[in-house]
């Protein structure tokens, strides 16, 4: 069970290795706080969807499994979306359509199809937590780097002094693409150096 949990963090990291769910990773990682809320929403949806789907896996007919997954996922996404709208309207506005878009986030559907629908509940939940944390640390790292270079702040606190000229490009789309590309490269390099096989 521990193994199932751990592999999502690095070895089978959904973002860095599988390159899944990139839309939201790139779009909302302009500040650290947005990244934090986004990963919270993804974790909620992923864990609860895995829980439900794994518990009803024996009664879902194989032919209509994908629509079933989507309905379950969409239900939890709607809950998360309405919760953010009600309690954190400012954040919800920043995240824009990307919270409802968790429905079609490939990470979540891929975990249901590949894992939750074939394994007992506790494994499915462990897997969901592992994947969600793997997603979270990448997006929060990206958010911290972009916020630091784009505003000179981290979680809204001023870190770099007034001498620092903000790199506006880091907040714009190109900054997101390039930073993530560099992170992917660094991770591959580290893995090749210390972790044996890169696959």
């Amino acid at each position, binding site marked *: 069970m521990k193994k199932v949990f751990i592999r999502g963090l690095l070895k089978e990291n959904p973002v*860095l290795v599988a*390159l*899944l769910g*990139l*839309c*939201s990773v*790139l*779009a909302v990682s302009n500040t650290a706080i947005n990244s934090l809320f986004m990963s919270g929403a993804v974790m909620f949806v992923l864990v609860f969807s895995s829980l439900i789907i794994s518990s009803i896996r024996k009664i879902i007919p194989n032919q209509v499994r994908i*629509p079933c997954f*989507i*309905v379950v996922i*969409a*239900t939890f*996404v*709607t809950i998360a*979306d*309405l919760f953010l709208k009600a309690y954190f309207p400012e954040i919800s506005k920043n995240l824009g*359509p990307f919270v*409802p*878009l968790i*429905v*079609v*986030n*490939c990470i979540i*559907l891929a975990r249901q199809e590949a894992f939750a629908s074939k394994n007992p509940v506790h494994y499915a939940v462990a897997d969901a937590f592992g994947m969600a944390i793997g997603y979270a640390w990448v997006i929060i790292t990206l958010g911290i780097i972009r916020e630091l270079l784009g505003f000179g702040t981290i979680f809204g606190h001023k870190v770099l002094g007034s001498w620092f000229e903000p790199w506006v*490009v880091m907040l*714009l*789309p*190109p*900054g*997101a*693409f*390039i930073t*993530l*590309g*560099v992170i*992917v*490269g*660094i991770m*591959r*390099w580290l893995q*090749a150096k210390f972790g044996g096989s890169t696959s």
Partner: protein
Amino acid sequence: MSNLFLILIATILVNNFVFSYFLGICPFLGVSNKASSAIGMGFAATFVMTMTAFVTWLINHYILIPYNLKFLETVSFILVIASLVQFVEMFLKKMVPALYKALGIFLPLITTNCIVLGLALLGSMRNYNLLENVIFGFGAGMGFTLALVIMAGIREELEYADVPEPLKGGGITLIIAGLLALAFMGFSGIISGG
């Protein structure tokens, strides 16, 4: 009329869905290895997106808003998109087999493409009328096609380039996408807003 034209240009160039909203990144990185399959994917998506823009507008304005069911937006849109794709697939198979063959496996893949649901949600946030929303969908599809084809062209050339080992695959693709996004920012002066 000029309004429609503005929406079209804005969605294709200025607010290109791939480069400024980050929608449809998965196929953009995964499929775009060959220019021919990029074109197939692009046109299949454009077709579905235009239809989606039409249908979701009707649902939004005749069912969700009058009956105060806005909270069902995400669920209803995704179900409509999934069945729409299925329907389009069956229709093409029966009526236009040549086109069906050309689009091939790309059609079912589109359901899980965030660009379609993203389009439906973004469209419902803006107060477009029906025609404007359809143009919005069509423009977004064309913009997606444009991005895919450019990327595929670059990646075909990339096979002969000497890329550092750790950056091969995902890394270099993301960095190229970043440079393309920079280039597309140059269009932002054409229209303000959009």
